[in-house]
């Protein structure tokens, strides 16, 4: 996928934030990746390993917090868990679902020293 571009964006965000803190080193990078986002987590880890080399976050631990997918079922008029975009509503079996959670791709926090 496009994980290399995403990894480059992560590096930019982490370096901006670490620079603003006057940090010497970034020890941990915590990402929030939704289950319904278009990210393959293992590919992203691999890309980050490459992209973060020679940066303030070289060798940083990458923690990825998964955010569960949630959809709004129009038929049931309520939120339901949604593991994949093409899954049916677990209540009514229909497909009138709009993802409402678990689509995010964010840098949540970093640990600096």
């Amino acid at each position, binding site marked *: *996928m*496009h*994980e*290399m*571009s*995403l990894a*480059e*964006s*992560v*590096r*930019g*965000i*982490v*370096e*901006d*934030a*670490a*620079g603003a*803190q*006057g*940090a*010497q080193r970034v*020890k*941990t990078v915590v*990402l929030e990746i939704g289950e319904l*986002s*278009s990210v*393959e987590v*293992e*590919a992203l880890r*691999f*890309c980050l390993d*490459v992209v973060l080399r*020679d*940066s*303030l976050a070289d060798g940083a631990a990458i923690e990825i917090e998964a955010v569960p997918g949630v959809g709004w079922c*129009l038929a049931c008029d309520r939120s339901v868990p949604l593991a*994949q*975009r*093409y899954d*049916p509503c677990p209540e009514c079996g229909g*497909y*009138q*679902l*709009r*993802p409402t959670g678990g689509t*995010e*791709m*964010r*840098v*949540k*926090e*970093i*640990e*600096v*020293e």
Partner: protein
Amino acid sequence: MCTVCGCGAGEVSIGGAGWSKAARPKGGATRGWKAAAPAQAHEHSREPAAEAAAGDAHIHSAHHHLHFGTGPAHAHAPGLTQSQMVRIERDILGKNDARADENRCSLAARGIFALNLVSSPGSGKTTLLVRTLTELAGRIPAAVIEGDQQTEFDAERIRATGVPALQINTGKGCHLDADMVARALRQMDLADDSLLLIENVGNLVCPAAFDLGEAHKVAILSVTEGEDKPLKYPDMFAAADLMLLNKVDLLPYLAFDVERAIAYARRVNPAIEVIRTSSTSGEGIAEWLAWLEQGMAKARAARAAAVQSA
């Protein structure tokens, strides 16, 4: 390099002009990176005394330096390290999305209706574009941005219709991004109230996540690809507002279930519109052109309203 599709920091060039070479140092990456550490951090590590005065513990001689007062509180508690968590809460695609919003605003201010055409390679995007532009010729001013990893073949096919086309070569990249389109727009002299068609890199995966500033993503699925594509690549069909089911003139020769393909697309995106098209037979082209003209009318009306209220 990306383990899934092989994309990576490549050699982007726009219009064959090779802006990447001028814009990037040799061996650099697609995007500019900041220096690894801010200048003041270096100074501080060399010259700690002034700032460390606020700290509570530092031992330094000419060559050795133990300093516990560089934390945020300039203090040290036994047993605790000086590391701290910094909350960031920033979208990974935030920069791209901000640039896409700039593109969207500048296009809207000129009443330009922009579409981002996405599909797998070989779905008939360029042929459909050529047919569309031929039909619109003389009536509607249009321009095209072509995205491919390499070559100007597609832009040349578009230019043969008399429509200006700018080729972006992404090098190793697997999708266009908002910054590439912003740079392309600066090189193009687009007419007010015109149509801008952006043909993304042929790839049913990566372009889904990258907003370019378009009014709509239009996914093109050809009937030679198999009706299960919307489930296999749900992100793209979820991101698109319109699906063109293309090459329908070939249906008599294929075991392709049209209704099932549409049902699968609506499973991932209940709101997606569908038009069946064939550049060869002309089926659905009138409906597609009417859809384009409706979108253009909306873009024109929005600009007129903005001009009036200004």
